[in-house]
């Protein structure tokens, strides 16, 4: 498959700058060919990008978490079947199947990784950040998660269980972080503001009330 390519491109790999512009040209050429052959409509590609940019993002996950914090029946349903519970919330982006929601407790912290590629609950969190898809996180998360958390300035109590979920199939995992103290009586909308993307991956915590954001 790639036998010839590895030789052809050896001379590029240390020159990021020229590789980028070369990549840009190659990507444009490919789109031209796909368009000329009638496989894709460029306007449809534009629409996909626009949908990614506007419809998905961590605000979807944050709404789910905030609702789980305020509605015990929803939380129970969410932990039983994430996709089903979320699909009943009209105001959240459409969710695919096989979403598993895992709950942080005072005894257990959950963290999600995909060591083999980049599996991520993107309907809930948007497209994954570069670090999630890169070698340092993918290699270390399953062996030294506390070391990884230190890179995020996050530390856990010494005896707290840490559970790492390696997303090796088409199941997707979303962490339900613990509700911050001092938020009694807050509305779902207020609580959703505290929920960070990283707190739903397990590499961070929700914001604390009154702390500078």
């Amino acid at each position, binding site marked *: 498959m*790639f036998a010839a390519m590895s030789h052809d491109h050896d001379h590029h790999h240390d020159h990021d700058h020229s590789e980028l512009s070369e*990549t840009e040209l190659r*990507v444009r050429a490919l789109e031209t060919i796909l368009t000329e052959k009638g*496989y*894709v409509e460029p306007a449809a590609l534009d629409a*996909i990008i626009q949908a990614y940019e506007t419809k998905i993002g961590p605000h979807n996950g944050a709404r789910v978490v905030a609702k789980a914090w305020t509605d015990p029946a929803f939380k129970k349903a969410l932990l039983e079947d994430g996709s089903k519970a979320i699909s009943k919330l009209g105001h959240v982006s459409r969710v695919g*199947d*096989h979403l598993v929601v895992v709950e942080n407790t005072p005894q257990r912290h959950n963290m999600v990784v995909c060591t083999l590629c980049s599996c991520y609950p993107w309907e809930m969190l948007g497209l994954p950040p570069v670090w999630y898809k890169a070698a*340092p996180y993918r290699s270390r998360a399953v062996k030294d998660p506390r070391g990884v958390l230190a890179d995020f300035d996050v530390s856990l109590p010494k005896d707290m269980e840490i559970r790492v979920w390696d997303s090796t199939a*088409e199941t997707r995992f979303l962490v339900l972080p613990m509700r911050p103290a001092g938020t009694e009586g807050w509305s779902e909308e207020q609580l959703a503001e505290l929920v960070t993307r990283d707190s739903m991956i397990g590499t961070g915590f929700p914001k604390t009330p009154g702390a500078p954001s």
Partner: protein
Amino acid sequence: MNGVHDMGGMDGFGKVEPEPNEPMFHADWEARVLAMVRAMGAAGAFNIDTSRFYRETLPPHVYLASSYYKKWFLGLEEMLIDKGYLTREEVAAGHAMQPAKALKRGKFDLANVERVMVRGKFDRPAPAPAKFNIGDRVRAKNMHPATHTRLPRYVRGHVGVVELNHGCHVFPDSAAMERGENPQWLYTVVFEGRDLWGEDGDPTLKVSIDAFEPYLEPA
């Protein structure tokens, strides 16, 4: 395949470096690559497992030195050539020169956009009862297929416990090689950190993978 993509437990890649206020794309071409992969996949040119396999078969030095979307691009181009949707001559020329190959689900146009914004369904009717129950001790097989698999190397040979049963799902090892969906039971299997990483491992760590039944044997 035992490729460099199977990174769990490898050392030497350095610190995780989150980027503050990271943009969704770092260049316009990244967005075009994402959209082309989604569009051609939805049109039926390839399935998700095949597309993963093509990224994994990038030469190791290319895989490690390429950005995420560069890997997607290289995998897409090679896959479309192999599957007969375009030719190397067309890629070199930057223009279509041959007649198009029919796409399983037709041209990807605006009417199809909504469809790619929801992840596909991967569960399938069960061809046979599940072999394992929740709570069973199972060993991840010592297996090393040269083709696509979703059983990471770091668990092979180790014993874990079945925690969840997700039902029967498309089997990536078959689907990637275009040998049919071959549905298999899918379980979450939990391993003790120290069983995986030895006595120096974090004693508070548990790691789970989602394992298809053919990856497992009773322990």
